[in-house]
């Protein structure tokens, strides 16, 4: 169960500067717990007691995990998880 997790610039201090790291687990929660064992403190920046933090967006293969079960979103081998801070974006 290898899952690629892409890390935004602002959180790379937890991954030794790596843009992406690999984790294992059947759900997003499992993968974040697995990552935290090697990148201490990372999980805390993404999750609080009520779930994903307000200004954190997590995408599973480009779809927002909040619509796929949140932390319980099921993952499969080869999936890509992307973490991004919420921004106002453009156009408007």
């Amino acid at each position, binding site marked *: 169960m290898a899952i690629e997790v892409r890390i935004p610039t602002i959180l790379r201090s937890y991954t030794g500067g790596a843009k992406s790291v690999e984790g294992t687990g059947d759900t997003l929660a499992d993968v974040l717990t697995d990552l935290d064992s090697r990148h201490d403190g990372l999980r805390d920046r993404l999750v609080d007691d009520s779930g994903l933090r307000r200004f954190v967006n997590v995408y599973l293969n480009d779809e927002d995990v909040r619509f796929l079960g949140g932390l319980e979103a099921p993952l499969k081998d080869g999936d890509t998880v992307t973490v991004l801070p*919420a*921004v106002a974006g453009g156009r*408007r």
Partner: protein
Amino acid sequence: MRYDSLLDAVGGTPLIGLPRLSPGPGVRLWAKLEDRNPTGSVKDRAAFYMVASAERDGLLAPGATMLEPTSGNTGISLAMVARLRGYKLICVMPENTSAERRELLELYGASVISSPAAGGSNEAVRIARQLAAENPGWVMLYQYGNEANARAHYETTGPELLTDLPEITHFVAGLGTAGTLMGTGRYLREKVPGVQVIAAEPRYGELVYGLRNMDEGFVPELYDESVLTGRFSVGAADSLRRTRDLLAVEGLFAGISSGAVLHAALGVAARALAAGERADIALLIADGGWKYLSTGAYDGTLEEAAARLEGQLWA
């Protein structure tokens, strides 16, 4: 069709089939052409509603100065309304937006204050809030939190779509202020059982996400997750590819954010096809391609064009 003034011509945009991009007779795509609004974007609806609402509430008197954080289209719409109604407009706009937007704003007589590229629109919002606090006489309509923005779509875009496409199963639009998705989405969900409301969100280069800390993140006050049924993040390369597809396959010259919307709509269409379900998917074309010519979106290979957009607020 005849209108008394330009402002009366906001909305009432055409919905056109995309038969060549649709995957099959049971799964059809329909494009709502918001570039057919007076200043060429969907933002005319929100701008007109926000100004009318502020006038009714007595917030705007003749000669008033409006202030707004915008990456372009809302500013252009507000500048047009301001001209016709006798207001001044100051826009706070990230410096990494296309040159055409700035030129149009200045043509309409708006003043433009640039905000730093890093942080994208978050910085524009922050600076606009600061300016509003320092200048209590200025009126900030604040599109990200103004209920009239979403109401414009609840009262116009939603009903127009349902009239033209009573069999609608999906609505797909870009996510910025969330006004389009919230207003149209709420209306459709009240009227059409099971309708899906899908957001397509541009994924920018790293510069735009370069916050000093996660607490500086921003979620528009209008955003209500419960209105949506799905949300996709679409990068520059996919958005450009689909923008070019719209032109090459259907003859539609659209802005880059519409490519992101088409990408999400095609993903939804493929799922419906695989599940053997009928789908009539309405997607919102927010603007035409004119304002993006200088970005090089239509020149060279996709890779070259995507590289040029790195660090830009392209949607």
